[in-house]
C-alpha cells in the first residue's frame, strides 16, 4: 500500500513536471527559432507595424547591424483552415546575426532560391506533407488583406523546423511578405546589435526597446496556465505525504511488539531508528523508481492535453517530447525518498523512544491522547498561511508554499478536532444509537491521527475539484455578466477561427464593416480593434471601439450604457474626442490607477496622455485592457485594420440564416469567420474546460490516492482490532453486523471527507485560488457554489468511502474467532 501510494505521488509530480517541461521546451523552441544573437528588439508593440526605414536609420550607425523582420499571421485556404505564420526576412541581413539559427542557417542556401521565385515561400517538410504541397506548387493564404497565392520555392531540409509552430510556418523574402500581406514599408520588429539603448531611443523615441527572447503575451498566458498544474501536483504530493505517514505509522505500530522485544534484548534506540529508517529509505527508493516510470507514461497523456490547451490559445506547441532528464530523476528520487523518510521519521522516532514494558504489557492500545499543543501550533500556522495568501500578493511559488503551510497546519489541527468531535458524537451515540455505529466510531477514534489524516487525504483530493470548479464558475459567471452587459452584437466576424486558436492575430480590412452592414437581416454593425501595447513593461490590450455605431447597436438592443460612465455627457465627449479612456477593473487593480487619474502610453505617434473616465468589468486580457475610441487608436498607433466586425441582427430575423449570409459575404475577399454569441461562449468555455481538465486528471489520481488511504486506514483498523472483532463475534455479533460496523467506518470517513471536500473546496476556491488569480490577473471573481461538483463530491465521498470499506469489511466478517481472541 505504501509503495503504491508513494508511487502514485511521485508519478503525479513527475508527470506534471515532465509535461510542463515538455510544453515549455516546445514553446521555447518556437521562440528560440525566431531569436537571433541581436542585443535589442525594437518595435511599436505587438501587432503594430514599424517603418522599415527605422531599420535603415539604425543601420546607419557605425558598427550596428539591423535585421527587420515581418511576422504575419495567415490562414490556409483549405477545408480545415489552419493558422500559418509568414516569416519575412532579408537573408543577407539575417545571416549576420545568426538569425533563424535554430531552424537552419544551412538552409539559407535554399533561402537564396527565394530570390529567383516570384512570390516565393519556403515551407517545412511537415507542413508540405500535411497540405500535399510540393516545390513549385501554389499555396493560398488569407493574410487579412485578402487571399494571396505564394509559390513554394522549396522545403526547409532541417527536420527541427517541423517542431516549430506546429510546422505551420513559411519563410519569404521581406519584400515579398510586405507586399503580399499588405504592409509595404512596415515590419513587425527590428533586431539590432552594436548600438546602445540610448542610441536607438535617440533615433526612435516612440519605439519599444526590449531584450530579445521575450515570449509573446499569449505564450506567456499559455505557460501561466500550464504552471498552475504544478500547484495541483504540490497538493497531490501533500495528500500522498499524509497517506504515507499514516501507513508508515501503522506499519511501525504493527511492529511495536517486535521493537519492544528488540529493545528488551538490548537494541539501542539508535539501532532501532537506523533499522526502521533504512527500511523506509529502501521503500522510498523503490517507489520513486516505479513513480518515475508511471509518471513518464502519464506525462504523455498530460502533454497531449497541454498541447491542445496551448494551441487553442496560440499555435505554439507541436510534437512536445516527454524527456526524463537526469535532473528530474534526481529530484523525483529525492522527493520520493524524502517523503518516505519525512513520513517515517515521527512514528519511527516515537517507536524508538517507547519503553519496552509499556508495549509488552496488556492494554497497550491506549485511548487517544490530547493533541491540543499540536492543534494550537497548527492554528497559528493556519493564520500565518491565510495572511500570506491574502495579503502578501507575492509570486505564485510563494503562494504555493503558503498553501502547503495551510495544508500542514490543518494536518496538525485535525487530529484534535477528530478527538473533540468523536467525544461529542460518542455521547450522542451511546445515549441514542445502537452499538453498531458506536463501535464503528470507536474504531476510528482508536487512532485519531490515522483517522484525521485519512479524512484529510480523501477530503483534500475531493476538495481540488470543488475549488477549481468554484473559481471557474466564478469566472464563467463574471464573464457571462460582462458579455451580456457589454456587447450588443448577435454575430461577430473575425479573421481567425477562434475554435482553432483563441489568440489569433489575423486582422480584417476596415471596409468590411460597411459591406457586412448591408447584408440583409443586419440592422447594426460596428468595428473593434484589439492590439497589444506596452505599459510599464507589461503587454496590455488596447480595445478600440467605433463609438457611434456601437451606441446605436446598444440603443437598438435596449441596453443600458456600458461603460456606465458614458451616460455622463462630459465623459462621452472626452471619449469621442479621444482624450479619455476606460480601464478594465484588472488594469486598474494591477497598475493601481483610479478614475480621474491620467495614464501615459507610448504610441508610434509619440507619448499620449489619456484621462481615465472610469473602470469597468472587462475580461478581455488577464494583464489589463483599456477601451479607447477606434479613431484615436488608429491615429495614435498608426493602424488601419480591425479585429472584429460586430453585427446586430434585425428583430424577427433568423440568426442562423443571417449568419450564413454574413459568412458568405465576409468570405468574398478574405478568410473570415462568423460566430454567434453562444458559439463564442462555447469556445471560451471549452478553453476553460481544457485547462480544468488538465487539473482534473491529477485530481482523479489524488482521489485514487485518497481512496487507497481509506482502504488502508480501515483495513489496518481491522487488522489492529482482530482480537476485538473476535470478541464481538464470541459474544454474539453476527458476521453481517461486523461487516456493517466496518462499512460504517467508510461511511463516517466519507461523510467527513465530503464535508472537507465541499467546505475546504469552497474555501480553497474563495481564498487561495481567488487570491492567486487576483494577484496575477487583477480579476476578482464572486464566490460561486458549483452545485454539480458539490453533488459529485458528496456522492463520490460516500460511494468511495463505502467501496473502500468493502474489502476490509469482508475480511473482518471472516475473522476466525478463536484465533482472533487468542492473539495478543
Amino acid at each position, binding site marked *: 500500500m505504501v509503495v503504491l501510494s508513494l508511487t502514485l505521488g511521485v508519478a503525479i509530480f513527475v508527470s506534471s513536471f515532465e509535461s510542463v517541461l515538455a510544453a515549455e521546451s516546445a514553446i521555447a523552441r518556437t521562440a528560440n527559432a525566431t531569436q537571433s544573437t541581436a542585443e535589442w528588439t525594437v518595435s511599436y508593440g505587438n501587432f503594430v507595424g514599424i517603418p522599415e526605414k527605422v531599420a535603415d536609420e539604425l543601420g546607419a550607425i557605425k558598427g550596428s547591424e539591423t535585421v527587420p523582420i515581418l511576422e504575419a499571421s495567415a490562414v490556409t485556404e483549405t477545408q480545415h483552415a489552419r493558422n500559418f505564420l509568414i516569416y519575412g526576412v532579408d537573408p543577407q541581413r539575417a545571416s549576420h546575426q545568426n538569425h533563424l539559427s535554430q531552424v537552419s542557417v544551412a538552409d539559407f542556401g535554399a533561402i537564396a532560391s527565394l530570390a529567383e521565385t516570384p512570390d516565393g515561400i519556403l515551407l517545412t517538410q511537415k507542413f508540405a506533407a500535411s497540405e500535399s504541397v510540393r516545390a513549385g506548387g501554389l499555396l493560398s493564404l488569407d493574410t487579412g488583406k485578402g487571399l494571396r497565392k505564394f509559390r513554394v520555392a522549396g522545403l526547409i531540409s532541417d527536420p527541427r523546423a517541423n517542431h516549430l509552430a506546429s510546422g505551420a510556418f513559411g519563410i519569404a523574402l521581406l519584400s515579398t511578405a510586405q507586399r503580399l500581406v499588405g504592409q509595404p514599408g512596415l515590419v513587425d520588429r527590428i533586431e539590432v546589435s552594436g548600438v546602445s539603448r540610448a542610441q536607438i531611443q535617440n533615433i526612435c523615441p516612440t519605439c519599444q526597446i526590449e531584450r530579445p527572447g521575450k515570449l509573446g503575451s499569449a505564450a506567456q498566458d499559455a505557460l501561466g496556465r500550464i504552471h498552475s498544474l504544478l500547484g495541483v501536483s504540490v497538493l497531490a504530493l501533500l495528500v500522498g505525504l499524509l497517506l504515507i505517514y499514516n501507513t508508515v505509522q501503522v506499519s511501525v505500530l504493527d511492529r511495536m511488539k517486535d521493537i519492544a522485544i528488540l529493545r528488551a534484548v538490548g537494541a539501542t534506540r539508535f539501532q532501532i531508528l537506523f533499522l526502521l529508517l533504512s527500511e523506509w529509505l529502501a521503500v522510498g527508493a523503490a517507489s520513486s523508481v516505479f513513480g518515475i516510470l508511471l509518471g513518464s507514461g502519464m506525462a504523455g497523456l498530460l502533454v497531449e492535453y497541454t498541447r491542445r490547451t496551448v494551441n487553442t490559445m496560440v499555435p505554439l506547441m507541436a510534437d512536445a517530447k516527454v524527456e526524463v532528464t537526469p535532473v528530474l530523476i534526481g529530484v523525483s528520487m529525492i522527493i520520493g525518498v524524502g517523503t518516505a523518510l519525512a513520513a517515517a521519521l515521527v512514528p519511527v522516532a516515537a517507536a524508538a523512544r517507547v519503553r519496552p514494558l509499556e508495549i509488552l504489557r496488556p492494554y497497550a492500545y491506549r*485511548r487517544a491522547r490530547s493533541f491540543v499543543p499540536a492543534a494550537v501550533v497548527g492554528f497559528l500556522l493556519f493564520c500565518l498561511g491565510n495572511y500570506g495568501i491574502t495579503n502578501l500578493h507575492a509570486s505564485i511559488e510563494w503562494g504555493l508554499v503558503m498553501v502547503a503551510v495551510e495544508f500542514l497546519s490543518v494536518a496538525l489541527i485535525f487530529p484534535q478536532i477528530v478527538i473533540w468531535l468523536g467525544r461529542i458524537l460518542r455521547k450522542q451515540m451511546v445515549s441514542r444509537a445502537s452499538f453498531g455505529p458506536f463501535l464503528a466510531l470507536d474504531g476510528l477514534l482508536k487512532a485519531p491521527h490515522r483517522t484525521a489524516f485519512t479524512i484529510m487525504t480523501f477530503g483534500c483530493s475531493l476538495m481540488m475539484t470543488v475549488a477549481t470548479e468554484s473559481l471557474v464558475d466564478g469566472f464563467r459567471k463574471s464573464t457571462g455578466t460582462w458579455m451580456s452587459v457589454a456587447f450588443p452584437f448577435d454575430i461577430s466576424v473575425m479573421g481567425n477561427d477562434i475554435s482553432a486558436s483563441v489568440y489569433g492575430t489575423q486582422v480584417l480590412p476596415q471596409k468590411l464593416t460597411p459591406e457586412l452592414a448591408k447584408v440583409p437581416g443586419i440592422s447594426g454593425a460596428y468595428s473593434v480593434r484589439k492590439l497589444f501595447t506596452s505599459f510599464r513593461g507589461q503587454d496590455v490590450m488596447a480595445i478600440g471601439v467605433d463609438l457611434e455605431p456601437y451606441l446605436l447597436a446598444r440603443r437598438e438592443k435596449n441596453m443600458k450604457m456600458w461603460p456606465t460612465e458614458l451616460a455622463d455627457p462630459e465623459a462621452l465627449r472626452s471619449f469621442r474626442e479621444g482624450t479619455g479612456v476606460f480601464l478594465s477593473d484588472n488594469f486598474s487593480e494591477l497598475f493601481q490607477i483610479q478614475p480621474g487619474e491620467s495614464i501615459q502610453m507610448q504610441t508610434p505617434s509619440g507619448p499620449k496622455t489619456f484621462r481615465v473616465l472610469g473602470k469597468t468589468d472587462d475580461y478581455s486580457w488577464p494583464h489589463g485592457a483599456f477601451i479607447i475610441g477606434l479613431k484615436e487608436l488608429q491615429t495614435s498607433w498608426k493602424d488601419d485594420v480591425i479585429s472584429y466586425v460586430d453585427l446586430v441582427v434585425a428583430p424577427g430575423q433568423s440568426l442562423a440564416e443571417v449568419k450564413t449570409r454574413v459568412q458568405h459575404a465576409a468570405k468574398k475577399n478574405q478568410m473570415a469567420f462568423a460566430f454567434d454569441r453562444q458559439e463564442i461562449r462555447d469556445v471560451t468555455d471549452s478553453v476553460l474546460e481544457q485547462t480544468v481538465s488538465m487539473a482534473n486528471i491529477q485530481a482523479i489520481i489524488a482521489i485514487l490516492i485518497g481512496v487507497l488511504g481509506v482502504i488502508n486506514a480501515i483495513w489496518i483498523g481491522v487488522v489492529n482490532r482482530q482480537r476485538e472483532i473476535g470478541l464481538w463475534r464470541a459474544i454474539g455479533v453476527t458476521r453481517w453486523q461486523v461487516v456493517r460496523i466496518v462499512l460504517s467506518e467508510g461511511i463516517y470517513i466519507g461523510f467527513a471527507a465530503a464535508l472537507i471536500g465541499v467546505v475546504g473546496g469552497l474555501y480553497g476556491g474563495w481564498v487561495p485560488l481567488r487570491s492567486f488569480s487576483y494577484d496575477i490577473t487583477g480579476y476578482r471573481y464572486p464566490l460561486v457554489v458549483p452545485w454539480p461538483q458539490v453533488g459529485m463530491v458528496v456522492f463520490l465521498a460516500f460511494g468511495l468511502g463505502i467501496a473502500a470499506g468493502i474489502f476490509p469489511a469482508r475480511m473482518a466478517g471472516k475473522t476466525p474467532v478463536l484465533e482472533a481472541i487468542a492473539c495478543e
Partner: protein
Amino acid sequence: MLQFTSVSKTYGEGPLSVKALRSIDFSVTPGEFIAITGPSGCGKSTLLHLASGLDLPSAGQVVIDGKATSDRSDDELTLMRRNRIGLIFQSFNLIPTLTALENVVLPATLSGRPFSAIASNGKRLLERVGLAARFSHYPDQLSGGEAQRVAIARALMMDPLLLLADEPTGNLDSASGLEIIALLEEFSEETVHADGVKLSRSTLIVTHDEAIASRAPRRVRLKDGQIL
C-alpha cells in the same frame, strides 16, 4: 441443556494432525456447576469452545438447547452465544476503548436495544460484582480482578442459561481468583427466565487450579483428550 455425544476434535490433517478430544460423552443439566480440570493441552479449552459453538466437532455431536451445533448456521450459533451463553475469558477480553459500563451492556446493545434502556441493568450488574464506583473507568484503569469482574458482568448481561468460563482466574492472584470464583458460584445459583420457563443456570469452568476445582460440586477430569 448441553450434551456431548461421541465428540472428537482434530486439528490439522495428516501426520501433523493433533487429536484434542477423543470421542467424549458428556452432559450438563440445568443448575449444575462443573469444573473441568486437567493438565495443559488435555483439551479443556477445546471442550469449552465446542460447548459455546465457537468451534465445531470433527466427529460426534454437541447439542445445545435440543439442537446440534453442527446443524446450526453461523448466525444461529452467534445468536445462541448472544442470548443463551455467557463467555468469560482468562485474559478478560474487554474492549479497551469502552468504559466498564459500555463493555457490560455491549451484548444487549447488539440486539438493537438502546443504551438508555439497558444502562440500569448494566449498572446493577456492576454493583453486584462490586464495581459501583467504576462505571466510567476504562479497562486500563482497572486491576486484573476488577477487569475480570467486568467480564463476568458482561457475560451475565443477557441472563444466559449457560455460563462458560475459560481459566477465569488464570491471570489473577489467588485472593482475586477466589473472589471471582465466589462470584461465579453466586451467579450459578440463579434461575433464568427462558422462553417463559424458569430454568436454573449451569456453569462450566475450565481450570487447572485444583483449589478452585475442588469448590465445584462436579468435576470432570480430562487427559489426552479423554474424560478420565
